[in-house]
């Protein structure tokens, strides 16, 4: 390997370290709960939506479960981007029983469903009106990695390489 190649690689490495996941442009064009809450935009009833975010509260009713979610923009893989500003709270309504000991506050979920108007939602002493999504599907993202599993899949990896058919020694950082 020529020295110029090594220099090129070393110059490109910082760019690899600054990869940022951008919100999906198609999903970002959707109406957000914050826009509904602020009265800026209003979706049609039964409009299909894909919203996701962080679980705040799970409430089990007799025949369905209400999940209050703090929403965030979604990536191309539909994963909530929690490093972005929140796009407002909404309530996901799912049929049947969902175990609240499994769907714990803090977990990330993405749901598909249809807009079903506003829901007067009582949390402790306060009543608030939140957009309601009648869920047809929900994906729960794996919780934050534990200490061990995060080391099995490190964010930063040190590489040491020695080439013999050319000449060169390099150390790189990969994401």
């Amino acid at each position, binding site marked *: *390997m020529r020295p110029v190649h090594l220099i090129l*690689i070393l110059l490109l490495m910082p760019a690899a370290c600054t990869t940022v996941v951008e919100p999906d442009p198609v999903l970002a064009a959707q109406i957000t709960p914050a826009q509904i809450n602020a009265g800026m935009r209003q979706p049609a009833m039964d409009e299909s939506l894909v919203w996701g975010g962080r679980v705040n509260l799970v*409430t*089990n*009713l*007799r*025949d369905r*479960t209400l999940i209050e979610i703090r929403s965030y923009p979604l990536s191309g893989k539909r994963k909530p981007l929690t490093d972005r500003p929140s796009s407002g709270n909404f309530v996901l309504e799912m049929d049947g*029983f969902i*175990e*609240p*000991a*499994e769907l714990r506050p803090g977990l990330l979920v993405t749901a598909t469903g249809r807009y079903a108007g506003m829901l007067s939602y009582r949390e402790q002493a306060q009543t608030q009106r939140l957009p309601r999504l009648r869920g047809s599907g929900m994906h729960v993202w794996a919780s934050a990695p*534990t*200490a*061990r*599993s995060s*080391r*099995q899949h490190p964010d930063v*990896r*040190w*590489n*040491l*390489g*020695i*080439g*013999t*058919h050319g000449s060169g020694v*390099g150390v*790189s950082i*990969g994401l």
Partner: protein
Amino acid sequence: MPYRSASMLMIAILLGGCASNIPPSIRIDAGEALSVSQVQDDPRGTHGKPVRWGGEILSVINHKEYSDVVVLRRPLFNNGEPKPRGGEARRFVARLPGFVDPAEFRPEQRLTVSGHLAGVVTLRVGQYPYAHPVVRVAEQHRWEKYVEPPEPPWYRDPFYCDPWYPWGHHRHWPHCW
């Protein structure tokens, strides 16, 4: 002579270390095949059958003569200890005689019980009527909150590539970039 006494003492200590305070019915898999959902579907047909179930403690309900510990069922390790996640994740009630202190049987702790099924009891989770299978507990063991075992320092080779190439395993060039 002092050496002989010391070695006897060492053997006694080592043998003592092998003794376990986990009851055999918790430690040894009796080959139970029943799941919580099977009991919910057929509480009469499964009444009286033996089970060894374990999981996360969710709450304790104290009655006059017994206490019900609500447990979220998890699969068990070979020694009977509940795994931290996975499995059917359904609720059951471990019925223990007398008073159980909720300050001792705390959420996040885990409990494994062996005993016999005694029907179902319907408890509300929010407003949802949830049929909890009841296990009359013969023996039980409580486990502290699960902590992931530390990763040994030799667990992962810090080098993505073999720095000793070409003397180690053969890899095609360029084997690093």
